C-alpha cells in the first residue's frame, strides 16, 4: 500500500509510571451495624483494613455485604420492602420497622493506626465538618446512618442518610442514637468518598469491558492523552478509513449507492463517508479490549478467556482504577472501600494462594468473603469475621475479643501453627484434636469404619496438635468461631497435665469434668490402648504382613517371624507400634476391622468419641462451647 499509515508522535513519550498512592486515606471504617435487613435483625461487624468473612453458606455474609452496599455503595442496589427483616410469625413487616445501617468512621495515620483527631487541613474535616463528633474520650469520629423507613408524610418508604451524634456502647441502643442537629442530611458528595465497591461472585472482567457503568469505563473514558496526540491519532484513523473503503470493493460499492442520498435530501455529495473504524478517539475507546496470551498459547480477547481469568481481571481492574484515582487526586478525600465475594472463584489452588497478595495491593480498605483455605491461610486471624447460623438468625464471632485479648505469642502460634498449615479448619463442622501421628492416621480410619463415610466427606477435621501442650491455639480457634470440637487424649500423667493446662488457659474445666475430652484409660497412651489382648493377634498379623511387604520371605522365615511376634507381650507390641507410627497407624484400623466380633472392631473409647462427634447423617447444628 502506498500510504501505509504511520503514527506520528509529536513528543517523546513521557514517564508514564504510576506515582505511588498515599499510604492510607486517613480514615478507616471500623464498625458497621445492621438492623432489620433480611436475616440480620441486629448485628455488629467490626472491620479491619482487610476483613475476611468466613462461615457456612446462607449464614449472612452476602446479606451483610448487600446491606452495606445498599447503604453506602456505588452501583444500582437499593433497599426494598422485601429486604426488611420479618419474624417467622409475621406475614409482612410492620410499617414501624426500618432498615438501619450505621457506619462508624475514625481517623487513622499512614499505617492505618487509629489517631484521636482529624488534623487541620484534613480533607475529611472539610468534607464532613460538623458531621464529625467527639466521643467521651474526645476522639473524633464520623458515623453515617442510612435508614430505609416508612414516611407517613410521603406515603412511601424512603432512604435517608444522616450523621449520628453518638455511637452507643450497646448495640441494642443504637437505633435510638441521636442525630447531629442543624446540619443537612449526608449528601452524595459526603458519602461517595467512602463508598463501597462490591465485586460480587458474578463479576466478569469481560462483562466490565462491555458495560458502560463499569470501573473500566470510568478509567478509559479519559485516557489522558495530550491534545496533539489525540489529533495525530484521529488523523491516522481518517487515513485508515480511507484506505479501508478504497481497497474494499464491497464498501466502495455501498458508498457509491449511498451517495445518491444527496440527490434526495439536501446535502453535500462529499458528505457521505463510511467509517469502518471509529474516527473519534472517544468512540474508539468504547471498543477497547484486553488481549491476553498465556505462555505457549495464541492471544485471545478477555471474553474468550476462562472464567477464572475474567473474574480475576475484574479484581485487577478495580485495583488499577483505585491506584490511578488516588495518584491523580492525592489530597482529596477518597477512601477506597472494596468488598470481594469469593475471590477464589474458578481459580486453581496455586492461583488462590497468590491471590491474597494481589488483593493486599489494592489500596484502601477491603472486605473479602471466602471459602478458600488458601486465602485464609494468608490472612491475619484477628481480621476474620465468622458467620454462624443460629436458628433463623446470624451470629458473628471474631477471634480477638475485647477483654480477652491474645498474647502476641498466642497470635504467632495461631497464625504460624494453625493458619499456615490448616486454614481449612475455619470451615470445619467439627474438629477432633489429639496429640500425635498414630491418632492422625488411625482415628479417621476408625471413623470411616464406624460411619461408612470418610471425615473429609462431611467436613470434619481430625487434627494432630503435635504434643500435649499444643491444644491451646486450636481450642481458641474452635471456641471463638463456634466450631464444635473434642479432644482424644493420652492417659499418661505428664501428657494429661499438659492437656489440662491447655484447657485451663481457655477457661475450661479439666478432663475429669469435661465431656468433650476423651482420655485413654489406665494411664496408657494410644498405642498401649490399642494393644489389647483381644486384638494382639490381629496386630501381630498386621506386623507380619508389613514385614513381608518390605522383605519378601519364605515359609520358614515367615514361621520364625510369626513365632517371634507371638512371643511379644502387649507392651512390646505397643512399643513396636510406637516405633514407626505413620506406617503402623495407617493399618491399625484395618487390623481391627478383621476382628470376628463386629462389636470389637472399634476400640470402645474411640467408638464413644465418634458417637459424641455424631454420625454425620444427622444434620449439624452449630453449638457453642
Amino acid at each position, binding site marked *: 500500500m502506498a500510504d501505509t499509515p504511520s503514527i506520528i508522535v509529536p513528543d517523546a513519550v513521557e514517564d508514564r509510571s504510576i506515582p505511588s498512592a498515599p499510604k492510607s486515606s486517613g480514615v478507616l471504617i471500623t464498625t458497621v451495624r445492621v438492623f432489620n435487613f433480611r436475616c440480620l435483625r441486629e448485628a455488629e461487624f467490626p472491620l479491619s483494613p482487610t476483613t475476611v468473612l468466613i462461615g457456612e453458606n446462607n449464614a449472612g455474609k452476602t446479606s451483610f455485604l448487600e446491606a452495606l452496599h445498599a447503604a453506602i455503595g456505588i452501583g444500582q442496589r437499593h433497599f426494598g420492602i422485601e429486604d426488611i427483616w420479618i419474624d417467622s410469625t409475621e406475614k409482612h413487616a410492620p410499617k414501624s420497622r426500618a432498615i438501619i445501617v450505621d457506619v462508624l468512621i475514625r481517623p487513622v495515620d499512614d499505617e492505618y493506626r487509629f489517631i484521636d*483527631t*482529624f*488534623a*487541620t*487541613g*484534613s*480533607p475529611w*474535616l*472539610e*468534607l464532613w*465538618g*460538623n458531621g*464529625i*463528633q*467527639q466521643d467521651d474520650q*474526645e476522639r*473524633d469520629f464520623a458515623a453515617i446512618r442510612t435508614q430505609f423507613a416508612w414516611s*407517613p*408524610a410521603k406515603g412511601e418508604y424512603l432512604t435517608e442518610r444522616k450523621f449520628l*451524634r453518638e455511637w452507643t456502647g450497646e448495640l441494642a441502643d443504637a437505633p435510638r442514637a*441521636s442525630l*447531629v*442537629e*442543624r*446540619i*443537612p*442530611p449526608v449528601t452524595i458528595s459526603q458519602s461517595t468518598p467512602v463508598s463501597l465497591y462490591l465485586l460480587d461472585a458474578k463479576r466478569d472482567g469481560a462483562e466490565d469491558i462491555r458495560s458502560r457503568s463499569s470501573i473500566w469505563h470510568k478509567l478509559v473514558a479519559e485516557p489522558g492523552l495530550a491534545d496533539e496526540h489525540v489529533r495525530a491519532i484521529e488523523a491516522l484513523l481518517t487515513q485508515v478509513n480511507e484506505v479501508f473503503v478504497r481497497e474494499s470493493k464491497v464498501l466502495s460499492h455501498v458508498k457509491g449507492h449511498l451517495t445518491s442520498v444527496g440527490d434526495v435530501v439536501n446535502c453535500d455529495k462529499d458528505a457521505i463517508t463510511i467509517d469502518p473504524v471509529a474516527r473519534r478517539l472517544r468512540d474508539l475507546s468504547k471498543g477497547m479490549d484486553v488481549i491476553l496470551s498465556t505462555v505457549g498459547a495464541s492471544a485471545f480477547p478477555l471474553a474468550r478467556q476462562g472464567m477464572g481469568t475474567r473474574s480475576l481481571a475484574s479484581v485487577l481492574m478495580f485495583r488499577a482504577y483505585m491506584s490511578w484515582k488516588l495518584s491523580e487526586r492525592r*489530597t482529596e*478525600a477518597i477512601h477506597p472501600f472494596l468488598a470481594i465475594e469469593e475471590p477464589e472463584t474458578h481459580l486453581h489452588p496455586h492461583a488462590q494462594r497468590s491471590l491474597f497478595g494481589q488483593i493486599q495491593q489494592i489500596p484502601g480498605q477491603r472486605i473479602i468473603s471466602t471459602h478458600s483455605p488458601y486465602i485464609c491461610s494468608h490472612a491475619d486471624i484477628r481480621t476474620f469475621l465468622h458467620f454462624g447460623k443460629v436458628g433463623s438468625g446470624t451470629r458473628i464471632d471474631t477471634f480477638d475479643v475485647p477483654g480477652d485479648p491474645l498474647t502476641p505469642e498466642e497470635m504467632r502460634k495461631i497464625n504460624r501453627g494453625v493458619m499456615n498449615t490448616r486454614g481449612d479448619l475455619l470451615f470445619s463442622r467439627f474438629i477432633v484434636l489429639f496429640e500425635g501421628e498414630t491418632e492422625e492416621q488411625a482415628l479417621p480410619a476408625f471413623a470411616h469404619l464406624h460411619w461408612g463415610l470418610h471425615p473429609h466427606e462431611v467436613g470434619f477435621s481430625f487434627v494432630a496438635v503435635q504434643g500435649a501442650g499444643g491444644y491451646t491455639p486450636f481450642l481458641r480457634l474452635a471456641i471463638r468461631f463456634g466450631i464444635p470440637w473434642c479432644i482424644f487424649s493420652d492417659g499418661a500423667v505428664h501428657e494429661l497435665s499438659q492437656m489440662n493446662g491447655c484447657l485451663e488457659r481457655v477457661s475450661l474445666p479439666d478432663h475429669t469434668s469435661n465431656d468433650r475430652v476423651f482420655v485413654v484409660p489406665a494411664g496408657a497412651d494410644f498405642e498401649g490402648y490399642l494393644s489389647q489382648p483381644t486384638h494382639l493377634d490381629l496386630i501381630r498379623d498386621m506386623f507380619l504382613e508389613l514385614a513381608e511387604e518390605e522383605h519378601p520371605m519364605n515359609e520358614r522365615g515367615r514361621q520364625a517371624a510369626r513365632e517371634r511376634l507371638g512371643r511379644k507381650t502387649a507392651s512390646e507390641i505397643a512399643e513396636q507400634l510406637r516405633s514407626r507410627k505413620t506406617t503402623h497407624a495407617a493399618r491399625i484400623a484395618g487390623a481391627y476391622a478383621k476382628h470376628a466380633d463386629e462389636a470389637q472392631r472399634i476400640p470402645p473409647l474411640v467408638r464413644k468419641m465418634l458417637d459424641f462427634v455424631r454420625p454425620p447423617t444427622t444434620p449439624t447444628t452449630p453449638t457453642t462451647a
Partner: protein
Amino acid sequence: MEVKIKLTDAQKEVVNHEEGALLVIAGPGSGKTRVLTERVRRLLARPGEHFRVLALTFTNKAANEMAERLASVPQVAERAFIGTMHSFCVEVLANRGKSVGINGLPNIFERYSDRKQILLEAVMSDPELSNALSAAGDNKARGALLDNWMRAISDYKNALMVAEMVEDETMRRVYHLYDAAVRACGAVDFDDLLLLAYRLFEERPAVASFYQRQFKYICVDEAQDLNEAQYRVLCALCGKDYFNVMMVGDPKQAIFTFNKADPKYLTVFAKDFKAKLIELRENFRSSNKVVAAARALSPDYVPQDEFPIVGVVEITECENEESEATFVADRIEQLVAEGHPDVEGNITLEKCAVLGRTKFVFNHLLKTLKDRGIEAYKKLAAGSVESGSNLVRQFELALRVLANPLDRLHIGLLAKEWKLDLPTEDIYIGRDTRKLTGMVILDFLIGKTSSADAAAIRDSVMSLQWSDTNFKLALGLDRLAGLAQSLEEEDRAAVEQDIKEWRQHWDYYVRNEPGGSHTVGTFLSQVALGTTQQPNQTGVALLTVHSAKGMEFEVVFVIGMNEGTFPDYRAKRPAEMAEERRNAFVAITRSRRLLYLTFPVEKVMPWGSTRREAPSRFLKPIHDAVS
C-alpha cells in the same frame, strides 16, 4: 448598584492577608463588606487545601448578605459558616453541649416577659426571696425589683459568671433559682448561649480544638460591637495557639455600648492576638456633603480620597411632627417622580430610608405615608414575633409545647389562656418525661378546659402533620385562618395580620433550612435567633439607628432631630453623650447621596399637651460644615 472599582492597596492587603491575626479598622463606606467577602472568596479558592471558614456577623441580615455575595464560590454552603455569634453558639451547643447540660437543640426563651415570669415563679417558691419581694412594696416596686434582678443575672452571665461565683448571697440565690427554672423547662436564654459556649470551650479544649481544626480562618464583622462575653467566647474558641482571626470594625460606629458592647475589644484583640493593623480610610459610599456632615460630628474622621459627587445635606425645621411627616412624604414623592442628578438612575422607594433615634418618632409619619399610599415597612428588632390576636397567641404557645414538652412556662401560660387553674407540675405526675410528647400535654389541657378556642387550636395543631422530623406550619395556619372566618371582623383582621407574619417567617425558614428537615423546635429557635427575618422588603424603610446598622441607602432622612430625642434624654454622662454622637454619625453615614435632617419645633406629648423642643445639638456643627 455598586460601583465596580478596583481594590485600593489597603483593601488588597486585607484580601491577600494569609496567616495570623489581622485587625481592620474600616470607616463608613470603606468597602468593609467587600474586602471581607473577597478575602473569604480568595481563601476558599486556594487549590488543594481543605478547611472551612467561620464568618461571624453582627446581624442575620449581614450574614445573609455575605452568603449572597459568596454564592458563586463553589460549595460555599459547606465550606463556610456564616452567621451571628449566637447562631454559632446554638450550633455548637446543639451537638456538643452535653457536658454543659445541653442535649440537642436548645429551646430559647427569647421574650423578656417570659423570662421575668419564670423568675417571678421561681422567687415565689422560695420563702426568703418571696418575702424580700413582697417587702419591696406595691406591684410597681416589685416589678422594678424583678427588673433589677433580671438585669443583674444578665450582667453576671455577660461577665461569664455562673451562679456559684456570685458573692452576694441573695443574688446568688436569685440567679441560681432562675437558672434552675429555665433549665427545668428544657430551655436557655440568650445570655446562656454565650456563657455555655464559653464554658464548653474552656472545660473541653478538645471541642474548641475541633473547631480550630475545622475552621482554619475566622472573620468577625462589626467587631466594635463585641461585648465582654462575645470576645471571651472567641478567645476560648481560639485557645492559646490559634491566631487566624480577622476582626473588622470601626470604633466610630460603636453604638451598642448600652448593651455592654465596647470598642475597646478592638484594641484588646490587637494586643492579645498580636494582630497586624490595616486601616481602610476611603469612603466609597457617601457624597462629599454627607462626609462633611459626618466629619462635623467626628472631626478625626478623615477619609482619604474625596468622592467626586457633591450630594445634598439639608436641615429642615418643621412646625410640628405632622408637618415633619408631610415634608418627608412630599420630598419622597418628589424624588421618586423627578429623580436627582446626584443619584444614578431612578429613585425608588427602596432606595429611601427614614431613620429615627427610637421607634416612637415614626407615629405621625406612618399615618401620613399610609394616607398617601406610600409603601413603607418597619424593621423590628430581631427576635420574637408578637402575636396580637388571642387565637394566634394560643397557637404559638401550643407550638412551643409541641416542641418542648418540658416547657412548664408556656404550658402554664397556655393553661392561663384557657382559664385552667392547675399547677403545671401536676401534668408530669405519673408520666415518663422521656417519652412524653407535647401532644399528650396539649390533649390533657384541652380535655380539661371549656375554652372555645381550645378545639380550634387542637384542630390546627393536628393539621400540622407533625412528626419528629417534619411538620408543615403552613397547613396549620391555613386551618387557623379557616377557623377565624367565624370571628368578628376586628378580631379576624388581627388574626389574619398575625398569620401573615407567621407565614413570612415560615416561608423564609423553609427556604433556608438545611436539608429540608423541618422540626417545630428548629423553626422556633430560628425565629428566636432572628434568622427568619425578611431580608428585603418593599417600600420605604423606617429604621431605628440601631437597626440601620450596616445598611446603606441613596436617600436618608433622619427625623426627630431634637434635644431629648436625638440625643436621647437619658444620655447624661459624657460617655453616654459620646455614644449619642456616634449614633448620629452612624445615622448620617447610612446615606450614599442625599441626606435630610428634620426636627419639629413643637411636639405633642403622650399625655396630650404640646411642648416646644430645641433642635438637636448635632445640627449646628453639621449646618456649619455643609453651608
